[in-house]
């Protein structure tokens, strides 16, 4: 027995401890979230971040990893799985493959991914992103604000989540004025603000003066364009007023807390079965919020009509058509 033997024993014990330690599960609910961008983007990622923080304040054990690249996602998913988090959410379409891969290695851990295409497995859920439902009342506001009768939609790419949003926006506007037109552009990039701005300027040249956007880059590009040439923008799934206080007239807000909370409940009660979670306007997960600083721009009856539409969607009186392409 020499020194080397003892040191290797010591190392083994430490290694063993490190390996065993994380396996100690959390007592109550536990939730880990992977974000594809920064937690304070006033948009997609912040929506999930806020929901996580709200649950943390209610006593849930919450861990959040921000700006995770798809290539790193598997590693981080495994780390959280090893640490004993029972519910792990990959809040991006890009986390689909990593989530499905890792979920097979940890059959007792539950996962969700932001697919929006109803694709799950035994321990993986997908969740819907029904932005189109809240886009309808925003269309009512837009129809009352636009001077040209031309609305714009700028998408990262023309995927169903985005396309349906633009179409519902148009449908809402047409419920006020059937002659209103929509010009939609796909930028081909979710983060390139400069290109999105050019896309918005091109629409502006054709008369567009009210936009809805799908994607953070598109939203920032439209806000930058509106600040330059006039018109109003919609905040994309978060409060973007501080990005453009004089042009962001209304925000489309996404509250993910009720859905995350439901997932935790299903895990706790053993009812998690990979269902497609649908949380939209009716569940209070999606609504709009006007910019108080620009209240004078919108006629009161338009605000009332938009609020009424939101209520009608909630009650099922109005069904917003989902037009994916």
């Amino acid at each position, binding site marked *: 027995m020499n020194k080397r033997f003892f040191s290797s024993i010591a190392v083994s014990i430490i290694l063993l401890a490190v390996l065993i330690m994380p396996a100690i599960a959390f007592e109550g609910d536990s939730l880990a979230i992977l974000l594809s961008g920064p937690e304070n983007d006033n948009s997609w990622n912040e929506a999930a971040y806020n929901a996580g923080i709200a649950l943390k304040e209610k006593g849930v054990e919450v861990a959040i990893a921000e*700006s995770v690249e798809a290539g790193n996602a598997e590693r981080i998913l495994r780390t959280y799985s090893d640490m004993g988090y029972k519910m792990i959410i990959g809040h991006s379409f890009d986390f689909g493959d990593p989530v499905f891969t890792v979920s097979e290695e940890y059959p007792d851990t539950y996962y969700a991914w932001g697919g929006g295409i109803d694709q799950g497995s035994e321990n993986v859920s997908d969740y819907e992103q029904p932005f189109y439902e809240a886009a309808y009342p925003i269309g009512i506001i837009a129809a009352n604000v636009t001077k040209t009768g031309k609305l714009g939609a700028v998408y990262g790419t023309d995927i169903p989540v985005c396309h349906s949003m633009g179409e519902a926006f148009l449908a809402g506007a047409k419920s006020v004025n059937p002659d209103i037109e929509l010009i939609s552009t796909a930028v081909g*990039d979710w983060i390139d603000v*400069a290109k999105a701005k050019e896309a918005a*300027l091109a629409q502006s040249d054709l008369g567009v003066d009210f936009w809805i956007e799908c994607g953070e880059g598109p939203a920032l590009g439209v806000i930058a364009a509106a600040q330059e040439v006039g018109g109003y923008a919609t905040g994309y799934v978060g409060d973007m007023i501080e990005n453009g206080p004089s042009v962001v007239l209304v925000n489309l807000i996404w509250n993910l807390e009720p859905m995350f909370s439901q997932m935790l409940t299903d895990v706790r009660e053993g009812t998690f079965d990979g269902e497609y979670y649908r949380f939209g306007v009716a569940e209070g997960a999606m609504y709009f919020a006007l910019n108080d600083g620009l209240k004078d721009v919108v006629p009161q009856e338009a605000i009332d009509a938009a609020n009424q539409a939101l209520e009608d969607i909630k009650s099922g009186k109005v069904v917003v058509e989902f037009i994916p392409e």
Partner: protein
Amino acid sequence: MDINQVLSASFFIALVTAGIRLSIPVLVTVLGEIITESAGVMNLGLEGIMAVGGVVGFLTAFNLQGGSLHSSPQLAIYFALIAGFVAGMGMGLIMAFLSVTLRADQTVCGVTIVLLGVSLSNYLYRQAMNTLAESLVSLTIYKIPYLHKIPILGPILFEQNLVFYLVIVLVLVVHFFLFKTRRGLEIRSVGENPAAAATSGISVEKTRYLATIVGSGLTGLGGAILTVVQLGLFRENIIAGRGWVAVALVIFSRWRPKNAVIGALVFGLADSLQYRIQAVTQVTYGKNTVPYEFLLMLPYLLTIGVLLFRNSSSDAPATLGEPYVQDAR
């Protein structure tokens, strides 16, 4: 509205103006890389250097506009552009040290610089700013008296911000520097035949350092123009591949500044055209008549097409990408 909409003067003016806007940050970057590559150093790190120039420029402008230069926000922008240039030079120093002094593989160095630059820019931004929502006061547009009234050309060329005019001057300066000055000749000779250059008393190391640092400075400036002048904001990955486009355009330009102008413009125009076609066809026909995916492909298709018809390998600096070892042969 009909097809005449597409061919109208106002459409054309808007199209070209947008094309110029999209091309300027890339053009300045290409000019920088032409200088660097002329000395034989292949700096593939442009994407990262642009990001660093972009964030340093943005933070400088933001702090000056909110602080000591509150009353003259325009001036703050010019200081920010200088800061972006200096930050780019700093990145260039790292690249030069790796590739010239340590003689490391330049492809690997370049990719490393991209990763470092992009991450560093995100880090600096998050450390310096509490929110991601801040934006800048933008530059005013100068109308040059009389000239801006010329039909079509007037609004395109003579109703721009000062940076546009400065970039035109920059193209001429870089051309003059590389082809009409002694220092320019030294840079090119070091790129073509470092051993011969060394024999005639030129320090290969010093010259390559100079070319890499100045070239990277311009790259940083390109990034700063994008964030400070054109967008007034910074975001993670805001450069969005423009650094890589610039690498391709250097080859397209055959290492000549005046060709770089054409290359950057073609790329910018193709980009601005596709957004305008998407919008106009919907107004005209009520739907997208051309699949938007095809239009998005257009700028890259054009780049490949033009590269196909230009046999440019013979124009490349002969020792591009090769470290120089004195007395090695």
